[in-house]
């Protein structure tokens, strides 16, 4: 069947006899090729609608944009450091890198993300990490946007879903215009896959194996798999209640095939995460981080409030969905309420959890928006026309997007020729707050051996790129830091409270490395100490060393 958009009129396409009297099906009277006689032989499954093509174009554009964003400097380097350690030693059971955390139990639920990240970085450098991060975000958008488009055929609703998702969870993906690459991104892809499979109206044979595989991976990629299990559980319970309510029989839900399908999916998910080197321990570890006392000091673990930008976005989204409920003809399912209220409560408890509520609320906004607009403007739904040409266009766009991404450039044209160019390029692809020059200085100059007191924001990068064996104080993995050490760190670096100089002596600190953005008070405090001297300073931070090392 010819593509609707590219088919000339039937009249124009009518084959005409040639001067020799034979019929030809290839040329128009003016001698140009007659496209109307071509048949679209693309397999049906591969044909795309125009809406899907638009959606791919938008997602691809976003992907390209994301893949150019510099990398934020906190967690990433710590995860790569753990990946490097795991490749050399195997999965840890106690914290392996920070001397002050020695012996602290550590079930590294993100070990697979870290190993993958380390290998990608080793092969492709920063562009590889940018690529994987951008792919993860784009995949999440594609899964949720695609699900809306698939269900409603409304490309605008799909785009709106993606936009809401991006905006509400923006602070989990980006800091300013910088990417925050974390194993959590892999968890989000797993979450999106789970949600899409769990809310799918059709039950395919491969859905259950897909759930199993997703959770088997998720249990090794990030500790957030618990959210996925909770989501499937909510969908299962919701389905039971909905079905039983509909037939006015409390026990009827048990016989509902969809309910049984979801129940089995939930159980498979629960079991699949056990396929981890930590076995049953994954459950204990996944629940331990959120309850850790140290993380309460971090902004991203604070309760969600209206003072936060993402709190304002969340409130606006909540308001919008209430309005949409008023106008949408679509029935509100129990699962939907359970998920919105449950995950919403989780986000209110700690703002980092908004990353799970955002896609769900965006999805339901998209769903009800499509329903409402259909009701207002276009009651009849037309089956979108699919064509191979759209597929070709989509593939072409994907190739262009890929080829123009930094990763594509490296893959197609190779890495930079000279170390200078590589260094310049590296500087541009990491956040301006990354202490690159300071770390280079540390590598080129000798600092006193022994304990280093560093700001936690730089701990990860120093761990990754700093001198080998440097004894750092803290990194962004604060949940692994003993409470007493973390309390001392806060008192010294955040407020210079108590006898902070004595604390430096007690820990045997011989070197202090601080950033100016968050710890300028500490730097000023260090300047006034007689037994310390400033060894290095740049626009980002400073290094102080003890005149007579301990």
């Amino acid at each position: 069947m010819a593509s609707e958009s590219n088919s000339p009129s039937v009249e124009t396409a009518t084959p005409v006899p040639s001067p020799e009297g034979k019929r030809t099906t290839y040329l128009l009277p003016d001698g140009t090729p007659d496209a109307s006689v071509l048949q679209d032989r693309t397999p049906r499954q591969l044909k795309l609608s125009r809406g899907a093509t638009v959606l791919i174009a938008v997602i691809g554009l976003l992907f390209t944009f994301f893949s150019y964003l510099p990398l934020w400097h906190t967690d990433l380097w710590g995860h790569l450091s753990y990946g490097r350690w795991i490749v050399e030693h195997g999965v840890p059971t106690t914290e392996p890198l920070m001397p002050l955390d020695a012996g602290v139990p550590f079930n590294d639920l993100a070990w697979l993300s870290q190993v993958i990240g380390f290998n990608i970085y080793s092969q492709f450098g920063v562009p590889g990490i940018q690529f994987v991060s951008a792919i993860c975000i784009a995949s999440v958008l594609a899964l949720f946007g695609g699900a809306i488009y698939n269900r409603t055929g409304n490309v605008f609703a799909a785009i709106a879903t993606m936009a809401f998702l991006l905006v509400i969870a923006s602070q989990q993906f980006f800091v300013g215009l910088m990417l925050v690459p974390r194993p959590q991104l892999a968890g989000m892809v797993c979450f999106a896959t789970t949600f899409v499979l769990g809310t799918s109206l059709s039950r395919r044979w491969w859905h259950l194996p897909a759930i199993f595989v997703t959770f088997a991976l998720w249990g090794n990629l990030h500790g957030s798999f618990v959210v996925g299990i909770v989501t499937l559980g909510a969908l299962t319970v919701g389905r039971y209640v909905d079905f039983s309510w509909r037939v006015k029989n409390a026990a009827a839900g048990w016989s509902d095939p969809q309910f049984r399908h979801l129940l089995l999916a939930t159980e498979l998910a629960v079991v699949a995460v056990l396929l981890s080197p930590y076995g049953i321990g994954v459950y204990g570890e996944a629940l331990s981080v959120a309850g850790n006392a140290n993380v309460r000091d971090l902004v991203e673990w604070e309760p969600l409030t209206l003072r936060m930008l993402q709190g304002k976005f969340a409130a606006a989204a909540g308001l919008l969905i209430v309005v949409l409920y008023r106008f949408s003809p679509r029935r509100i399912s129990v699962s939907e309420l359970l998920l919105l209220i449950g995950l919403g409560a989780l986000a209110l408890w700690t703002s980092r959890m908004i990353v799970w509520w955002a896609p769900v609320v965006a999805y339901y906004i998209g769903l009800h928006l499509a329903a409402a607009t259909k009701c207002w403007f276009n009651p009849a739904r037309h089956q979108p026309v699919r064509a191979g040409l759209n597929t070709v266009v989509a593939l072409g766009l994907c190739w262009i997007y890929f080829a123009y991404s930094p990763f594509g450039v490296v893959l197609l044209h190779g890495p930079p020729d000279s170390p200078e160019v590589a260094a310049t390029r590296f500087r541009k692809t990491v956040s301006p707050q990354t202490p690159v020059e300071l770390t280079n200085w540390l590598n080129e100059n000798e600092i006193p051996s022994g304990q280093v007191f560093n700001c936690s924001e730089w701990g990860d990068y120093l761990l990754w790129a700093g001198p080998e064996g440097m004894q750092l104080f803290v990194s962004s993995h604060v949940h692994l830091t003993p409470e007493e050490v973390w309390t001392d760190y806060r008192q010294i670096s955040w407020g210079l409270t108590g006898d902070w100089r004595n604390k430096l002596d007690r820990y045997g600190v011989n070197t202090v490395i601080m950033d100016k953005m968050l710890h300028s008070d500490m730097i000023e405090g260090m300047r006034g100490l007689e037994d310390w001297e400033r060894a290095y300073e740049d626009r980002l931070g400073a290094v102080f060393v003890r005149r007579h090392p301990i």
Partner: protein
Amino acid sequence: MSAKTLLVAQLFVVAMFIGAYALSSSHARQTVRTNILGDDYYEPVPVVRNEPLKARPLYNRPDLVSDEDLAAVLSQIQPRFDARHMKPNHIEHALRTWGVHATFQNPEAVSGETMLRFLTDTASFTDSWGIDAEPLLIDHPEGVEIRYGEMQGASYHHDHWLACCTEAGATLDTPIFTPGRRNWTLGDVLQQSLRDFRLDERETEWTAMGFALWIAPEKEWTGSDGRQYSFDLLSTRLMRGEKQIGVCSGTHRVYSLMLLLQLDEEHDILSDEAEVVIMDYLRSVRDAIMASQFPDGHWPSNWPDGADAVANPVNDELYKQVIATGHHIEWLSIAPKELHPPEEQIKKAIDWVVATTKEQSRQDIRDRYTFFSHVGAALANWRQVHPAEFWHDWEAEHPWQPEPATADTSAEIDATTPVKTD
């Protein structure tokens, strides 16, 4: 999906969980118990002995410490405390020095048995402090905690009670009578201490001693926080930071390190790497005290400064000099010769501290009992004799005579004024 399939699925799930639980490491299982069931990580550490190990003095040097000098010092530090408001810190020091079997002809002096009872029996403690006082022993579901800190009637340092009772020779089955229960033993205090221990707490000197003297040859254990502790880690913690910072000008951790090293010889509680690091640390201490000794023989509180401590002396009070000197000669008494400063330096230090102790009035000794008790313990070590045994023999030959009453002896210690003593 049929009901049968669903049932099979349930069995599969249950089987997987049982299998995962069985195959997972004990650590993984404990992680689940802790974070889901609210249990803690701690597993009681096996203790294979009822009597604690002891630090082994290595030298019998009458040329350094004569019987007369030792007797004079021990006479000074007899545990003569008022029955009212006896300070646990003083009693702990006296008990550690004299031991649980100590007896005295002097009726003012408290026997080892009485001191141990004061520390282990709430009724005895209440006799001294009254019923309104906070108890020294605190009941916990799994064991007994010792109240410590700067409060009235509390032990001063964490695990000091445990280390002192242990050094005094109290057995593991010593009954502990808390306000709520009467069937605890010293073993329950030890286990509670092992459970509560945090590596980064302020003082670990006595913890290291208390643990090592009981649990060797165990060298690793898991705290209630899940952290994997070992004597390697403890020794690293003891060596952390500026040498002078630490209890008694940093000398206690030197003693604890030396004790760990000595116990390691017999019980292998340290790794080879840790042994090397500790030896290096102790050598650096030796070098510092070689350079920082004053001509009269005492060491100052800033002994880690080495020669600079002599060139630019700090204005130490006498008791600080006694602390540094007394504690140094104590750890040297159990240290191999390689870690000794030249013998004449040890001799000078001993002479100075003996003379200084002899000069003290009874009130001075009372006020600073804790520091002078270390002098007595150190000198007895240099004669390879237990103070109580020596004193028992000495009193047999030199029976106690009542002292003439003086204003000094009737002086009351103001128990409401906490004196920071170690």
